[in-house]
């Protein structure tokens, strides 16, 4: 059966991976290639790399892909500033499997169709950035959250699907870096409007946030950015928590935390002394393939 995915989102700003807070403040993390390599080792199922630099300071996305793709043995999607089919071709040729479009969904939806005709619908992800307006209703935004789309997120998602997008990435702007969990109402609203798979992003602060979203209809990918940085094995631990909650996950890393218990905030609890005593002589050998 198809497994739920943990998707690692790497935001790149002027060539450096950053953590983002509310689409406004940024903390440097490190080199893109190293971030990709670490996520690969720590049990991630897919990587989405988004270049959020200002248009003047943006590197070519295909050049970025060339640098990181050799370190990536899981699927890789890339976005940020894609406006033409030739750019899609270059980005895919340089090692990305799929591309992420956001502003083009509003300004040039034909690009989705052209991309899907040439590379297949499964290669085009439409990213919908949204937050609640003053009246409490959700509004969609483009240009990195700076420009109103004057559409509801559900309308924008439907527009993307109608033009041929194969997947919708929902990003809750107001939850970016908030660690308070996904905006589940927003996800449910968009998921009802479309029939393609949904990936959710924005707000993860504990593995239990993944569990809440994994149970919503249509959600096929659980994405996180900041949450996966700086700590080893966050994806693997999250998968163990999801598995315990009854959600089918891919657990292929040798350390899968299957038999562990977790605290309320999703941290590993110490194992009993007797168990630790027994484990002393287990030796894991690197497999040579």
């Amino acid at each position, binding site marked *: 059966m198809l497994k739920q995915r943990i998707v690692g989102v790497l935001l790149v700003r002027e060539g450096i991976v950053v953590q983002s807070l509310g689409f406004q403040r940024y903390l440097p993390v490190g080199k893109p290639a190293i971030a990709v390599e670490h996520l690969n080792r720590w049990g991630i199922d897919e990587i989405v790399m988004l270049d959020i630099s200002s248009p003047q300071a943006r590197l070519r996305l295909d050049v970025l892909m060339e640098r990181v793709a050799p370190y990536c043995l899981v699927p890789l999607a890339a976005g940020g500033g894609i406006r033409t089919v030739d750019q899609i071709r270059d980005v895919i*040729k340089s090692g990305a*499997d799929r591309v992420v479009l956001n502003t083009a969904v509003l300004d040039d939806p034909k690009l989705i169709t052209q991309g899907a*005709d040439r590379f297949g*619908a499964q290669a085009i992800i439409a990213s919908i950035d949204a937050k609640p307006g003053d009246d409490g209703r959700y509004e969609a935004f483009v240009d990195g959250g700076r420009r109103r789309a004057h559409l509801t997120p559900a309308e924008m998602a439907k527009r993307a699907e109608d033009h041929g997008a194969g997947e919708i990435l929902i990003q809750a702007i107001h939850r970016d870096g908030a660690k308070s969990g996904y905006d589940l109402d927003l996800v449910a609203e968009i998921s009802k409007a479309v029939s393609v798979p949904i990936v959710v992003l924005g707000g993860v602060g504990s593995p239990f946030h993944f569990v809440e979203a994994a149970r919503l209809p249509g959600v096929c*990918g659980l994405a996180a950015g900041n949450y996966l940085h700086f700590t080893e094995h966050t994806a693997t631990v999250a998968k163990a928590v999801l598995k315990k909650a009854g959600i089918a996950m*891919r657990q292929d890393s040798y350390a899968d935390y299957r038999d562990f218990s977790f605290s309320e905030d999703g941290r590993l609890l110490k194992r009993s002394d007797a168990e630790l005593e027994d484990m002393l002589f287990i030796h894991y050998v690197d497999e040579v*393939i």
Partner: protein
Amino acid sequence: MSVQSRNVCIIDYGMGNLSSVASALASLGCAAVSSADTVRIAQADGLILPGVGAFGEAMSRIHALGLIKVLERRVLGDKIPFLGICLGMQLLGRDSTEGGLHQGLGWIDASVDRIPADVSIRVPHIGWNEVAWTVESPLNGNLEQNGHFYFNHSYCMQAPNEVITAVTDVGKPLVAAVRRGNIWGVQFHPEKSQNNGRRLLRNFLNAIPILSPEAQTAC
């Protein structure tokens, strides 16, 4: 004979993420060439046809590059190992209904259709799914049953039972791998399936026979 000296060519027909396949092979110590040059393809001892894209577009590019003759000579005539990945597998079929009816290579008696509507997942089929091997072959001999591989497709192959070597479950079984003699096809992406994928690619490299001395000097 080490893997390094196996002369593998990844067919570059302007569709798809060639560099992913090349870097997965490189991680196994095999320096494959990516090329659309008929001479390079004719020299290779193993061919990989990757693919991300639409069926019709892919076939017209293969025709436009004049690759049909050399592929048929090497794969059907000389029977060198051939691996089609994702779209590369679908192209092995007779025809596809993706964006109108298009003819494929016709090496395997199969057709390609949209994933049926009565599956239990949202289409496209994107993500990690379990692969159940139904026949043992050099490609999967040492792979665990129901291991995870990465799928990313909206169309699937309808093939006769005798060529199917693996299926995956999406509420109903979909063809995950096919084989006809030296021709293998996989619907999933081994180059993006971490260690399971590397094992499969290693098996493919091992299926390439040891080179003759003349061929070695050629590469």
